[in-house]
Structure formats: structure tokens, C-alpha cells
């Protein structure tokens, strides 16, 4: 099992005109171009803005990797993407964020609805999030306040 990065990255220039409409210009760049604020990305952005009347409000770089041997998924009572477990996380700055994961294993629940926060895999997941993830604003996470299974749409019962 290994992650294989794509041969090129994607550079995206996001424009907004004075009517508020958005447009995006995409191009491929070498996979060594990873910083949207400097180097090749900054040069292209600056030169593009010089000949456009719209506002180039964001430069974005997409980096893609594919798992070449992902292993086999397993079946279970909640094995469809529409079945999700939702965790609500509180950040150090007092803000909240949620993360939803599809096809949850039934072993992480204490009943058909509530997450079992004593389950070892659940605690490992939360530890990984607290140690490595942020909110979009850059704040680290401090605690999980809720965890429950979301009922898929159009299903009448759990």
C-alpha cells in the first residue's frame, strides 16, 4: 500500500468581476510547485492580474495522490455513504467544527445512535484529530462534545 502523487499539480486562479461573477482559470504545473504565494504560482498570478480587469482574489494549488493498493472495504449494517457518524469538535479558540464520516462501523456505537467514546478506535481517531488537525482558521481542537449517527434521508427509523 502506497500513496502515489500525480505527475502534475493543478494551479487555479480565481477571479471575480465587478458584477460579482466568478471565473476560474486552471493549468497544470510541475508537482514541485506547491506554494501558491511564491515562486511560479506567484509569477503567473501577478502577470495574469496585470492583463485582467477582474480581481484575482485567490491563487490555489491542488495536489493529488492515489492509493495504489487500498485494500478491501467491509460490509456492515451502516456500510453506505448515506449512513454517517458526526463528531462535533470544540477548538481552543472556542469555535466549533463538525466532521462527518460515511459508512461507519457499527462497533463504534453504544446503541443505534450514540458514539461510544470509550471505544479504542474512536479515541484513536479523536487523538489523531487533536494532534494534527485544525479549524479552517488555524485553531487546534481541544475536545469532542458530541458524536452520533445521522439517519440517512428518507429512512423512517434507525
Amino acid at each position, binding site marked *: 500500500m502506497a500513496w502515489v502523487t500525480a505527475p502534475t499539480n493543478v494551479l487555479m486562479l480565481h477571479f471575480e468581476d465587478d458584477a460579482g461573477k466568478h471565473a476560474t482559470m486552471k493549468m497544470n504545473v510541475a508537482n514541485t510547485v506547491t506554494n501558491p504565494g511564491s515562486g511560479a504560482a506567484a509569477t503567473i498570478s501577478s502577470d495574469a492580474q496585470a492583463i485582467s480587469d*477582474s480581481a484575482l*482574489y485567490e491563487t490555489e494549488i491542488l495536489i493529488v495522490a492515489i492509493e495504489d493498493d487500498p485494500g478491501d472495504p467491509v460490509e456492515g449494517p451502516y*456500510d453506505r455513504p448515506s449512513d454517517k457518524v458526526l463528531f462535533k469538535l470544540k477548538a481552543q479558540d472556542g469555535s466549533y467544527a463538525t466532521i462527518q464520516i*460515511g459508512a461507519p*462501523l457499527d462497533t463504534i456505537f453504544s446503541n443505534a445512535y450514540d458514539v461510544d467514546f470509550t471505544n479504542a478506535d474512536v479515541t484513536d481517531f479523536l487523538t489523531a484529530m487533536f494532534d*494534527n488537525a485544525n479549524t479552517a482558521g488555524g485553531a487546534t481542537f481541544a475536545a469532542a462534545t458530541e458524536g452520533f449517527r445521522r439517519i440517512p434521508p428518507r429512512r423512517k427509523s434507525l
Partner: protein
Amino acid sequence: MASASTRVKVTFEGPYQLEFSVTFYVDAGIVDPTDDGIQAIIAAINAITCAVAVRIEISASAPHAVTPTASQVYVNEDKAQFVFKDAEGVPHNFKLPAPKPSIISDDDGTTIAVTGAVAAFTGAVAANAVGPNGSVLTAPSIGQRRASRKALKK
């Protein structure tokens, strides 16, 4: 200036080949899919879902504090189209939104000469962009203004 965080979107595939994605944020500047922190989160998610991770997409962005030109002549539906060719002769189109009127020929209102600021842009693209398979691009000698507007329904 880069954004405060890097966005990571991981696609998982469950049984029956059905997919879903999970998005989270990590420290700005982390752009390696094999980063230990990203892999730790993915491994932990793999342990609580029936699905397996198959694709990682990392988005690093830099916002710019700019405003559009007031009452601009050409809007985002109008494009400056430049056709670059790679070493195999395959054309690659790049369309820049809302070109400045000053770069468009007065003679026909369409032709864009690759000089000055336009040449700087096409040169930067040729020097730094590549084809989807990594092939080197050659800058064009001319560009065209294209209007992409929906026809009015009668």
C-alpha cells in the same frame, strides 16, 4: 500570504463501489500527501469506517486583497484565449477572464498581440506550466478575445 490552514479532502470507497469524502484542515504549509499527521488521521478514519481511503486532494491557497476594475468593459464571460502547444504538438487552451481593453486590437476588437504585459503572462505560463502529462509548453504568438455568453431566448 497563504491561508491559515491547508484543506485536505480524502475520498473513501465503501462496499458496492460507493464513494464519499471527508474534509479536514491541517497546518498551512503542509502539502505532502504522505505527511505523518495526514496519514495518522486517514489511518484513524480507516479504523472506524467500512470504507477504505483511495484518494487524497490537498488544497493550498493564497488570498489576495484586490478589487475589480469599476465598470469594466469586459466581464468574466469574456476571455482572452491563448493556445499553447506542447512538444508533441498537442494544443492546450488557456482562457483568462475579463481581459483589459488595452491589450485587444482596435482594428478588429478580437486579436491580442503577444507583447508587453501579455508577453510577460504567456512567457510565465510557458516557463512554469506544463501539459497534464508534464510536457513543456510553447507560448503562442497571438491570442484571441472570446465572448462566452448565453444567447437570449426568443
